[in-house]
């Protein structure tokens, strides 16, 4: 028993260590953003206070932030899962869209089912649709070798226009540029129904689902044979093949699971917030934001939760900063700087350099061999 506890302790340590680098990068980015705000002649303290107040100031604001965080966790997981298999699932955007429209269809078509069943069916329909959509890209990569980024981007456009087509035809709300609404039995339970604190927020149970999925993703990746194979393919497909692991099968599977998460994100947005799908003039952005979320979260499921929270705060607190007279672009700039710092692995590179120099000094002083 004790050894198991030790095992968990060590897992936790490893996770914290992995999170440390992006965390420092984020801090530096905020300092950089502060300098920027200052150079506009505004007070950075005021700006950041507004940012925090606007996103976490009270329960309702916190609830609204979590509404944004929910799909970001799932699309972030989607990207992270793909990365672990060496795949860049830029198609999460399209899988999100497909998940949304599929969920709306299921939420509308199966009216009359008991709520718990209907919700489960609706979420599964959306997630599976996303998974199927993604596995086309995975299949193309495995069988023909065409790159998942190119195909993913193309599939994003196909998904968007297909969704729009369905919205304007089969599922059209007559005379409107959006789809029919889902049945009440398909709607996710909202916190405002029971808690007064969340009265003015749309916070729904999707956040809980997304947290459970994050833990499930962590478990699949790190504690199962499937995850072992997927990560092996991601790290070194040659060694994986040598070890009897089918590279093609795992590429398709990893894409499908990745798409499952993105599709689920779309489904949750559809049945938790909008209750329908709008005619899209452009990408929803949730899938693409997932890339940034995953990157900052170090492609780690737990990291993704934290980084989704960060992006939620930035997105929801931004308008509050604007009220304080700080251009909303600053939020965008901070986001960009964070991604830049994290992507360049800036903090790690610097600390590694310092470490190397120190070690070098030590070994030179001692004059030791090896």
């Amino acid at each position, binding site marked *: 028993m004790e050894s198991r506890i030790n095992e968990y302790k060590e897992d936790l340590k490893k996770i914290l260590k992995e999170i440390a680098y992006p965390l420092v990068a984020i801090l530096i980015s905020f300092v950089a953003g502060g300098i920027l705000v200052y150079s506009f002649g505004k007070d950075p303290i005021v700006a950041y206070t507004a940012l925090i107040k606007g996103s976490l100031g009270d329960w309702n604001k916190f609830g609204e932030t979590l509404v944004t965080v929910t799909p970001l966790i799932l699309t972030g997981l989607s990207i992270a899962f793909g990365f672990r298999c060496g795949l860049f699932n830029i198609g999460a955007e399209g899988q999100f869209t497909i998940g949304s429209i599929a969920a709306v269809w299921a939420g509308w078509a199966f009216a009359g089912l008991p709520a718990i069943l209907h919700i489960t069916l609706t979420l599964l329909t959306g997630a599976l649709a996303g998974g199927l959509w993604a596995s086309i890209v995975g299949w193309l990569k495995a069988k023909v070798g065409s790159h998942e980024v190119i195909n993913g981007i193309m599939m994003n456009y196909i998904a968007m226009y297909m969704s729009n087509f369905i919205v304007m035809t089969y599922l059209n709300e007559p005379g409107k540029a959006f789809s029919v609404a889902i049945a009440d039995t398909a709607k996710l339970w909202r916190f405002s129904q029971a808690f007064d604190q969340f009265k003015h927020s749309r916070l729904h149970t999707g956040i809980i689902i997304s947290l459970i999925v994050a833990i499930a993703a962590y478990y699949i990746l790190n504690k199962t*044979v499937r995850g072992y194979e997927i990560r092996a393919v991601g*790290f070194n497909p040659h*060694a994986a093949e040598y070890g*009897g692991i089918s590279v093609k099968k795992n590429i398709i599977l990893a894409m499908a699971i990745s798409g499952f998460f993105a599709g689920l994100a779309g489904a949750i947005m559809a049945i938790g917030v909008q209750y329908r799908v709008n005619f899209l003039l452009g990408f929803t952005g949730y899938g693409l934001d997932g890339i940034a979320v995953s990157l900052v979260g170090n492609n780690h499921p737990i990291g993704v939760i934290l980084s989704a929270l960060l992006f939620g705060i930035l997105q929801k607190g931004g308008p509050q900063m604007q009220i304080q007279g700080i251009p909303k672009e600053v939020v965008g700039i901070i986001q960009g700087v964070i991604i830049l710092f994290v992507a360049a692995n800036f903090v790690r590179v610097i600390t590694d350099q310092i470490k190397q120099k120190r070690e070098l000094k030590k070994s030179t002083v001692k004059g030791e061999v090896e």
Partner: protein
Amino acid sequence: MPAVIEMKGIGKSFPGIRANDNINLTVEQGEIHVLLGENGAGKSTLMNILYGLYQPDEGEIFIKGKPIRINNPNIAISHGIGMVHQHFMLVQPFTVAENIILGQEPRKGMTLDLEKAIKDVEEISKKYELKVEPRAVVQDISVGMQQRVEILKTLYRGAEILILDEPTAVLTPQEIEELGVILKSLVNQGKSIILITHKLKEVMSMSDKVTIVRRGKVIDTLNTKDTNIDELAEKMVGRKVNLTVEKSDAKVSAPILEVKGLKVLDNRRLEAVKGVDLKVHGGEILGIAGVDGNGQNELIQAITGLARTESGEILLDGKDITNLPPKDVIESGVGHIPEDRHKRGLVLDYSLAENSILGNHHAKRFRQGIGLSYQKIREYSKKLIKEYDVRTPNEKVLAKSLSGGNQQKLIVAREIDRDPSLCIAAQPTRGLDVGAIEFVHKKLVELRDQGKAVLLVSLELDEVMALSDRIAVMYDGRIVGILDAKDATEKKLGIMMAGGNAQDAK
């Protein structure tokens, strides 16, 4: 007259390692000077410093008595230093002449003067008695020829001092002999040569002087004629070494692996294995000798399921395993120590524990419920680490943090502990130090003594001869002959490796 090269008190550190520590090296005009040492002893670092690829932390370099700071290879070249790397730096689709002039092309106005280039190459090739065909395309000529092109390249740039890094690794015994002649003739024309190697025999046959490097320090500098192989080995390793493999007579049983009429394509879709018949019996080590690139890789890949068999049959214990996926081949009882441990043998970013179940990761004993039990995996890994003497802080460190020898030990441990009926060992000791080599050899012999079949593929002829009970020679995708190890001599094998048949060899 001052020495052509004098390196004084050279020191160079990398994080965690002192690669060169107060090294002194003197090379006289017109001598062949061997730098002898195990992998990782610091020979290549020293030569890279001389060639300007690294900067030393301490020490000075004198060329013909003048102190020179060599900040980059161009400075080295301008002082007449030329380097032939272990892995050739040739443009494969270019002709010999184009490769030689690359970077110092003769021009005619705005364009390249190819005619002059060819003339130049012919001239220089005649002058140094290094015969090459200037119009031949590099990818079509033999490895030995390519090496000549590399040497000519340095001479074309006016090299007076040639550094050759492990030049014999890719050559047949006959080609090695030819290289010896070439080097002698270069020296006779006033060039000086530094040879990096860890092969003792070549030191004795090729050099005038030898400097032994161990763990970044110079152990000794000797005149070759005053020393012998045993003394060199001891100085190189730091203790007495047993250079022969001790094994009893083989107790051969029924064939375990049978290969019939096997044809395999390489990744360029050309036929690489052109009809191989082979039997490996229980209780024997069958060695495959051959120069790199004669179909050995493809043969192994076909047996292990990593490459498709075009035609022919592969039987294991009488069971057809032709074109089974790698997973099924592993489960039928094939262990495989792959040639390239970084590419195939290990997931470098996985921990040792995770690596020790690669290929076995489906086994029930590592399961717990629907997931993997990392506790059981770690216990298993600890067992392997202990039994196979893998030097590591613990089983949780990443495989990439281990030295090559310890990485290889882990692979050997994993593949042997699987208890395979056939073990394929491809270059099992490449890049290992003498201690690790002894260990791996011992384990392979143990496996054979347990009645298992061992298929050994190695480019090191000495290794094949020392370990094998029978030796098959592979040339151009075919087995040109199989000899009993007792009848095999280096000369016989060498002729066969170059495509001659067993009759010629006798």
